[in-house]
């Protein structure tokens, strides 16, 4: 058990450390969350710069735009780049989720065409699984792909698509046969987001932002060459993508702790530093051990992956614990501030209104990528091996499953 690099790893770390020092932007004191489109342009520029230097997708093969190195090199990169202000985690869904799908299912020619510009973020990808009536129950999706000669015609609606408004391509899961079991009637494709029949509509969030989108498909035609995997093999392909997602987002999720620590170190109430208040200290201790535990648990997972294992469903715990504490920390900070806590003006509110912004954004983080309940189910069934609930949809064809005829 040690945190030391091998000589080769140490050399690599030194190399990127010096490259970053010369090329990356230092963390500034303030900052706060940038406007969505500014952040997007910054991120595209940064990814291109990284790719030009040969550091894009370190663990991808070189012919697909990667560096041909190991997962551990990627971890070292993440550790070092975390010291800078660059938007290094921006295209995590496109590259982390869509990349492996293309890598695994596309033809060699497609891979050579599609992957290098994905790695450098010259083309941007999104992932389209969720639908209005298929949230926690992803396999309840209804967007149809109907074969028409060598083409597929797509109709339906996706929702909660991160970054669809900026995307050139998307990976999409469709129902190709509603008359058989829901898990066997799905197929995965990719699609050009700028083609006819595809319309992207941003969703206004409760915090006023619009990070997510609805995507409407109206007789959108794609060639069969855009199919990823077998017809009817969509669910298996989706599980592969979701498993890679775990690795991609491991340790990236905000849990709100660093900002809370900062608050405890700086805030005075009635002239007393709150760091001396045992009630505040008790919260700090509890949130710290959760924060530290998530981090250490991620390191355990990365060690296992480095030894050739797959990222386990244990990763769900980081999302579950981190997302809840992120919200509760924001609320607690606001409560500590009392009357002033409700004010959102960045020039008045502590840490540029970080806690006020977070209290409004954090409910979405608890939902995105699976609710608390989905995370607990994943842990109970996939880690602990507990039995599934009796399934109301078991043994039924998709179009026979009770749905209450819900509209969304």
């Amino acid at each position, binding site marked *: 058990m040690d945190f030391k690099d091998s000589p080769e790893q140490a050399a690599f770390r030194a190399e990127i450390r010096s490259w970053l020092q010369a090329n990356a932007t230092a963390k500034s004191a303030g900052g706060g969350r940038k406007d969505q489109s500014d952040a997007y342009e910054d991120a595209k520029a940064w990814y291109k710069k990284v790719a030009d230097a040969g550091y894009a997708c370190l663990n991808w093969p070189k012919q697909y735009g990667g560096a041909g190195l190991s997962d551990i090199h990627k971890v070292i990169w993440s550790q070092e780049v975390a010291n800078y202000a660059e938007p290094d985690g921006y295209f995590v869904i496109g590259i982390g989720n869509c990349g492996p799908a293309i890598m695994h299912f596309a033809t060699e020619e497609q891979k050579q065409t599609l992957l290098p510009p994905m790695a450098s973020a010259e083309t941007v990808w999104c992932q389209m699984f969720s639908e209005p009536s298929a949230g926690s129950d992803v396999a309840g999706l209804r967007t149809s792909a109907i074969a028409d000669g060598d083409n597929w015609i797509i109709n339906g609606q996706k929702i909660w698509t991160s970054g669809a408004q900026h995307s050139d391509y998307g990976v999409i899961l469709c129902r190709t046969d509603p008359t058989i079991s829901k898990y066997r009637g799905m197929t995965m494709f990719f699609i050009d987001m700028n083609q006819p029949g595809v319309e992207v509509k941003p969703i206004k969030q409760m915090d006023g932002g619009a990070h997510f989108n609805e995507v409407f498909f109206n007789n959108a035609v794609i060639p069969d060459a855009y199919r990823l995997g077998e017809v009817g093999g969509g669910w298996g392909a989706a599980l592969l993508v979701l498993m890679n997602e775990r690795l991609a987002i491991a340790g990236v999720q905000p849990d709100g702790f660093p900002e809370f620590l900062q608050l405890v170190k700086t805030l005075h109430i009635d002239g007393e530093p709150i760091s001396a208040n045992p009630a505040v200290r008790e919260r700090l201790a509890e949130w710290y051990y959760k924060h530290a535990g998530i981090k250490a648990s991620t390191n355990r997972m990365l060690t296992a992956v480095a030894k050739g294992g797959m990222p386990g469903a244990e990763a769900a715990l980081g999302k579950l614990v981190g997302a809840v504490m992120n919200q509760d920390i924001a609320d607690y900070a606001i*409560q500590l501030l009392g009357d002033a806590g409700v*004010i959102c003006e960045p020039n008045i509110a502590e840490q540029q209104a970080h806690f006020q912004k977070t209290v409004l954004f954090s*409910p979405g983080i608890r939902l995105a990528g699976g609710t608390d309940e989905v995370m607990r189910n994943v842990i109970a069934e996939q880690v602990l091996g507990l039995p599934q609930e009796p399934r109301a949809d078991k043994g039924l064809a998709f179009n026979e499953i009770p749905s209450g005829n819900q509209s969304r």
Partner: protein
Amino acid sequence: MNFDFSDDQKNIQDQARSMLAKECNSSVVRQVIDTNSGFDEALWQQIIALGWPAISIPEQHGGLGLSYLELCVIATELGRSLAPVPFIASVYLGTEIIKAAASEQQQAEWLPELASGEVISTVAIGSDKSSCRASNDTLNGSKSAVLHGMIANRAIVAASDEQDELQLYLVDLHHNSIQCTTQNSLDPSLPRAELVFNNTPAIKLSGTLSAKAAISRVFDRAAVLLAFEQVGGCEAAIDMAKAYTTDRYAFGRQVASFQAIKHKLADMFVAKELAKSNAYYGAWALSADAPELALAAATARVSGIDAYYLCSKENIQAHGGMGFTWEFDCHLYYRRAQALSTLLGGNPYWKSLLVDRLLAA
């Protein structure tokens, strides 16, 4: 023992509920938020016409002279409907501080205008960082996070006098010496403003209670009334979560039939029911002006804050992704929960007060 509201009071509540269901659906709240108008003037006029601001004002000052219990049932409905009106500022706080701290003559002068709705009042006595000083009947300094500061006609402001003692002053907010700036806040349907005073004329409230005692008394009363607003909000959030999860299907069955969702809703109900029961006890203590009020008010407040945070945030979660949209109303309750919880000082402040009073009891 009769630990319930009377039939008359329940009738008032039913009427309030019907009126607000009709006149204050969420599009009214959204209109105020979207236009930054501060309040819904039509709704406020209806509320005045129904005499609600006059409920706790004595008859000799133009009020209805009813008990606080009537105010409690109305608070529940205002909370349930997220009414975007200056009722908290003007009635629970502005009116009550005048009743507690103004002289008989001042009350005779100021209360009738509040009872009739001619004047909207607010208070600027919170524990914010800004400060005010008074000297020679003029005020200087600033106050932040003043509730409905941009639409109120008058404010009662806490300031230090020449002897460095805390006093309360009435100021006319239309006076041109005052600079008033709207502040963005978590709940724009209960808007806040910064007030900057520059040699602003001010009238000292000259009742017999000290400013500190009067503020404490008014905060205790308001704590009970806010607890009822919170209970109303909790009930609305529970109803929303129940309706949505009952209608929506996943895995071939109603979402509300999953035990994790049922238990989430049960926990919301339990928190709400504790808050409601504590609010009832506060209502009794308030209406009886009982010595138990101090502890009962802090208990109702803390219980109400915890319940509303829980119910409003888990209502979002029960709605899944739709709960996170601007379009659905979940966030309106969540925002209101934040706004109500931070008024009069937040949760830790009131917990500490509760314990002081419990240990002294």
